[in-house]
């Protein structure tokens, strides 16, 4: 029998047992659904991680620290005291001093080194408004914050600041444009209690981007010089004066970030590129994905036996038909193929059903998830046609294997015995 006839014949057989076919396919669909959703979620999560890293880290930049402790992989046990140690977030971390920064600047292909000051204002206010807390961030043009008013400058001039839109109502501004060119007062306080007030001109209002990490979501962006001044004032006379826990090294564009990182490590520092951060995130996603995939595969094992069972019953039910076909000269191979392809069809139907259900669920759930997770217009469940096609092919393979044993039984039936069955 030609393969096309086998295909049609097995398809017809399934059509005649619609309910049974559909029920068996549903079992496959459960596994298909789980796996489709898992793949879509992992794809979406990876894309989100990519966007997150891209929005928050300059791909050409390398984050540098004195040693690995900043990245959480270093030594947290007691260590010998040195002057560049500072207690940050409860664990001792070595700090980068001005001479370290100078060292980094001297490296080949380094265009700029930005010291990442980690400072908080005592309060932020303006004339006639209450006082509010505020974190002071070094402005970084490559992160391009989303603007509500004004434009994100390539270089923030000394004396200019950008403020988060959270401050607009607090500081009695009507809207973003109302804040432009107004004066912002930032009060800083030393450990000793001594205070100083800095006066800045607001040149822009940032808004919370769906991709911005929380720590720089709402604050005041200062130019590097101003940040240095405020940091210097707060930490003046302490061990932290003029030191930062991390710096960002920007390459000149003629060197790969990874090569630049190697150079920096050779110079005796710890370094991470945007790629590194992305890889860590992707690893976490992969582990989570793996766990759900295992559950999907377990449901598949159950449906595998479902298909075996269904096909066995189908062979028993159609003993007479098989006998007739054999009596009329159908080869064992054809009979076997007929039942295997039936199983393949079931796999195809089930996988398609599962994938369609998953896509439907995705369309229904994506807006809700995006809303809850602050994804903005991006979606968590991203369905890729190649992935779905691959999954369908995989499920078809699984059910075909499940059809193997019943198909063998059918092929081996003795036509005389089979025809005796009334």
């Amino acid at each position, binding site marked *: 029998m030609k393969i096309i006839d086998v295909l049609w014949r097995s398809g017809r057989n399934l059509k005649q047992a619609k309910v049974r076919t559909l029920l068996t396919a549903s079992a496959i669909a459960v596994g298909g659904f789980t796996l489709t959703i898992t793949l879509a979620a992992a794809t979406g999560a990876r894309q989100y991680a990519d966007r997150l890293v891209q929005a928050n880290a300059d791909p050409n930049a390398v984050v540098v620290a004195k040693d690995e402790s900043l990245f959480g992989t270093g030594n947290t046990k007691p260590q010998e005291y040195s002057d560049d140690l500072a207690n940050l977030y409860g664990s001792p971390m070595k700090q980068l001093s001005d001479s370290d920064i100078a060292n980094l600047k001297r490296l080949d292909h380094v265009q700029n080194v930005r010291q990442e000051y980690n400072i908080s204002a005592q309060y932020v206010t303006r004339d006639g408004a209450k006082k509010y807390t505020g974190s002071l961030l070094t402005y970084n043009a490559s992160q391009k914050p989303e603007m509500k008013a004004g434009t994100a400058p390539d270089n923030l001039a000394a004396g200019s600041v950008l403020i988060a839109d959270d401050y607009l109502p607090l500081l009695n501004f009507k809207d973003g444009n109302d804040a432009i060119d107004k004066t912002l007062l930032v009060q800083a306080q030393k450990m000793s209690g001594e205070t100083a007030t800095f006066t800045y001109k607001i040149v822009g209002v940032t808004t919370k981007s769906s991709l911005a990490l929380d720590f720089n979501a709402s604050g005041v962006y200062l130019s590097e010089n101003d940040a240095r001044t405020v940091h210097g004032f707060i930490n003046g006379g302490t061990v932290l004066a003029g030191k930062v826990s991390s710096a960002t090294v920007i390459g000149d564009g003629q060197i790969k970030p990874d090569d630049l990182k190697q150079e920096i490590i050779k110079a005796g520092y710890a370094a991470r590129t945007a790629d590194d951060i992305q890889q860590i995130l992707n690893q976490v996603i992969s582990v989570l994905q793996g766990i759900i995939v295992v559950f999907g595969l377990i449901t598949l094992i159950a449906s595998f036996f479902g298909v075996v069972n269904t096909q066995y019953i189908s062979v028993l039910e159609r003993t007479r038909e098989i006998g007739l076909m054999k*009596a009329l000269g159908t*080869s064992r191979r054809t009979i076997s193929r007929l039942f295997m392809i039936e199983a393949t069809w079931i796999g195809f139907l089930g996988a398609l059903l599962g994938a369609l259900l998953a896509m439907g669920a995705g369309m229904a759930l994506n807006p809700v998830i995006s809303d809850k997770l602050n994804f903005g217009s991006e979606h968590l469940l991203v369905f890729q046609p190649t992935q779905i096609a691959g999954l369908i092919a995989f499920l078809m393979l699984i059910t075909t294997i499940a059809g193997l044993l019943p198909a063998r039984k059918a092929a081996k039936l003795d036509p005389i015995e089979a025809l005796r069955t009334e």
Partner: protein
Amino acid sequence: MIEVKNVRKVYGKKGSTFEALKGVSFKIPDGATVAIIGKSGSGKSTLMHIMGGLDHPSEGEVVVDGKVVSQMKRKQIDHFRAHDLGFVFQSFFVEANQTCYQNVALPLEIGEVGLSKRKQLIRSALERVELSDKVRSKARNLSGGQKQRLAIARAIVNSPKLILADEPTGNLDSDTGEKIIKLLFGLSEAQGSTLVIVTHDADLAARCDIQLVVKDGQLVTIKDKKTGNAATQKGVRA
């Protein structure tokens, strides 16, 4: 020409064996109509199965057109059944959920006949059994006589040399049975096929060219209308 040479068939294993055929021999010339007569359990069905390559003889051989059916490999037997044989069964064995067209298509699908030729052969076969108007009807909606006509269409669609009919009228009333028999005779004559009918109906048997009477696994009588011979098994051997 079909030659059955000293065929024995033993069922079961040592200790509890049953000899269904105890050495049967006969010859059937091409185009003849043959009745195999006997009571149930006489071995007539076994004989037909062996002639159709469905069963293997324990001893002896069946030769059809010079081909030794009983020594064929499985593939050759499949080919033989698909191209040279037509089967008609007592309980029709038509696929109730399939249309007449699909039922008749089965032997052609098995024989890998091309689609356009297939259509033409199916139409012609259904025409010959007068079921042209039922091409698209499901077999389950047919009457008993129509079902058997459909089964006959399926048996003749590939123009086989040999048609084996196992009690073709057994499940039909006598009027319908008579029509079926006429149809079978007419078609085998028109195609020049050899027709072998297994039956216990003496009237039907009497209308065949050759009557083979089987009793307890042995051929007890051969009646040949054309030669007028009425011989016992021993006479055949001589």
